[in-house]
């Protein structure tokens, strides 16, 4: 009987969402120029006349605009998504980082323990040996991901998770392995603090919180687009530390 009601309600919900879909423009045929992201792609946000954009009147659209390899554009990242994530809407990311920070903190408070929970199952030999080889590589790959955040897809968050995966691997491989919460906490806190300090520096120098005060360099180079790579490394390390801290908590039990 309950299932029948549940199906009915779920179907009702689906019907409702479908009828809401009428509002959203069809799948795929979106006119980018009517959206803000066109100027993100063209990296000419400062030129746009914000007032009549707000009034949704004047949308200057350029047809072709060479971006790659240009010198000190408004924002140097080749990967436009990263430019949005860390430069144009970096406040979101700051919020994002705090969510993860709260989650890790919360898990620490709820499950906080000082000793490693022993499950007593010995991983097989091949697994133990291969982790010793793989872990450095994984960490290197993770570091590569968040260092090249502004060039290649992926950035601080995927990089950090890869590092945390390495930590998880170590946990699985070895019963005795136990990361001390103090170290992960310190790393996490310092990286987060540095990120906010970078924002405050932007406020001090450029007059706006999280302002990109370093030169943006040439689009496509490794050292380009100001503080974006630096911030992404902070985020990468922070997320790595947090998630490994999270895994430690999940593996820990009362003292």
């Amino acid at each position, binding site marked *: 009987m309950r299932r029948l009601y549940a199906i009915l*309600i779920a179907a009702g919900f689906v019907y*409702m969402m479908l009828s809401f879909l009428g509002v959203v423009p069809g799948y795929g045929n979106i006119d980018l120029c009517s959206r803000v992201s066109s100027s993100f792609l063209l990296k000419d946000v400062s030129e746009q006349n914000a007032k009549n954009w707000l009034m949704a009147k004047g949308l200057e659209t350029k047809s072709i605009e060479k971006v790659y390899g240009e010198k000190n554009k408004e924002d140097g990242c080749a990967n436009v998504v990263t430019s949005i994530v860390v430069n144009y809407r970096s406040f979101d990311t700051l919020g994002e980082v705090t969510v993860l920070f709260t989650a890790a903190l919360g898990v620490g408070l709820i499950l906080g323990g000082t000793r490693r929970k022993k499950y007593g199952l010995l991983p097989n030999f091949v697994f133990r040996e291969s982790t010793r080889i793989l872990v450095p590589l994984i960490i290197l790959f993770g570091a590569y991901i968040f260092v090249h955040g502004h060039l290649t897809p992926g950035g601080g968050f995927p990089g950090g998770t890869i590092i945390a995966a390495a930590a998880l691997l170590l946990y699985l491989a070895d019963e005795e392995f136990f990361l001390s919460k103090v170290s992960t906490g310190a790393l996490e806190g310092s990286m987060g603090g540095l990120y906010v300090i970078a924002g405050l520096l932007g406020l001090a120098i450029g007059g706006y919180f999280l302002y990109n005060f370093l030169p943006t360099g040439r689009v496509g180079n490794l050292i380009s687009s100001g503080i974006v790579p630096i911030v992404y490394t902070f985020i990468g390390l922070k997320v790595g530390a947090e998630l490994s801290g999270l895994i430690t908590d999940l593996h820990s039990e009362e003292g």
Partner: protein
Amino acid sequence: MAITLISILALSVAVYFISKLSWKVGAVINALAGAYLMIYLFTLKVGSSEVLGTLFGEKLLLTYTNASFYFSFVSMLVILAVMVFAIKWLDSQKYPSAFNMFLLMMTAASLGVFFAGDLLTLYIFWEIAVLSSMLIVPMGKKEARRAAIIYAVMSATGTYMYLYASFMIYSRYGNFNLAEVAKDLANDPSMPFKVTVYLLLAAAGIAKSGIFPLHTWLRIAHGNAPDAFSAVLSGQLVKLGSYVLMLVTAFFPTLKMFQGLELYSKIPSPNYFLLALGATSIIVGTLMAIKQDDMKMLIAFSSVANGGYILVGIATMDAIGFEGGILHVFNHALAAAIIFMAFASVVYRTHTTKISEMGGLIHKMPITFISYLFAIISLAGIPPMSGFISKWMIYQALVRKGMFVTAFIAFFGSIGSFLYVFRPLAGVFLGQLPKKYKDVKEVPAIMWIPMVTLVAISFIMGVWPFPILKPIEAMRADFAISPSVKIADASNWLVRGVTGSWNPVIVFNLFIIGFAIAYLLYTLFPKPKKVDLLAPHKEEGAPINIYTGGEYIYTPDLYQYNTKMYAGFERMYEKHPSWEKVLDMLCKFFHDLGQLVHGWFFRPSPSAYAFWTVMTLLIVFWVRW
């Protein structure tokens, strides 16, 4: 006026801290403040008005009319007596300092109600009075906790209906001032508006003065409140309700307002509805009072009945009926105050309010007995005391209007009052004195002086009622009640009614002459030999334990006749429909509703929450799409 009221309110808070040091000093300050207020009443000039302050852009007005003088005088009389009474009585209480504070705060608030010139000020002071009295009630017995809650809720229902009506008026006429509202209501075209406003405003009065539908709190609150406070509660607080009822029926031009609705002998139907409620509360009050075994609950029900008399008096829309009703406010206030103070002194000594456990206290507490005797003579409405005058006037109005059913109920009420008034007299004071009260002493002087003074005042007003009738006549002139006939004819000592007049002084003199003749006859014939109820005769030498009727009694307590005194009569209305059960069912309904809401919507399982979220989404979608 405003400064005195606010300063008294401030003083009440100060009294709390003073009586923290020693409650005696606090009680004395209270009494002095009461005395000051009493004198202050006489210094005020009738008709003067002041602005208390502004609230939501409306001026809060305090006007001092004849009505406010009369009602404040009656309240101050009762409160002053209780304050003096409480000076010694408080040592038997657990919370003396809080008692002093809230009593003074309630005094100021009730004076505020009587002085209020507009609906909003009246509401403010009314709420303060309810709040402070609500916090004194729970200081009494175990059951008093529940009593306070029931009292709070019932007076709140009445007050919130009043508030609703006063804002309806405000949104229609734009001001709260009583005078203007009366004028606007008079020539307001829409009848349903006027009737609803009238009934809603009256609801506050009904709730407070314990008229039929909302009367159950009286029994519990009076029965369990601290004893001295139930004197104030039934003597003075109930009069707030009567004041509002008077405002609504007499001050507002109800005759002009309900032009077409004359139901019976020129009484408009809403007034007749209130009159009917008053009549029902007389019946309920009397019948229930006869049944009670707890003496305070008995007198509480008598307050219900007398509240009914006042309402019947006012609602007859007749000059003499109105005066009777208003005079009955004075009589009942004094009588109830004296009786409750007498009971307080009895409880002060015997620590029980059950009639069946007491008896023969007359030998130990003669003064309390005398004051109680005179109070019940006035309460039952027997000639030499003032109670008779007001009842006589109400009968005149009822007879003139030819309302025989109400007349029957009024007669039933007054004869019924003989019965229930006599029950504590016989049960508590007369008959055998149980052993455990052998060493009971009379109450200290500070406690019986206020009782005796109130008795004296009531007695004088009974013999020479004209000084108390003067302000009532003035009040009647203010409201211009229909046949403006001269009632209190002081020159030749006559109280004129519809069906002839009578002279209280001659009646009193006759009674005295009759008493004198009886005494003469008494002394002529041989002296009686004093026989104590039980004690052996010392003078005779040999201990002859002669009990009346020559029987030798081993267990005298058994012979005290105070349980189920009117068994014959009570058997007639054994299975009576109790209104309290109806109200308890109503509370139970709300309680179950709460349980249902809790069970249904706040069930512990998350899937229920998801269910409700999606359901709201679908409903809002279905409604708006």
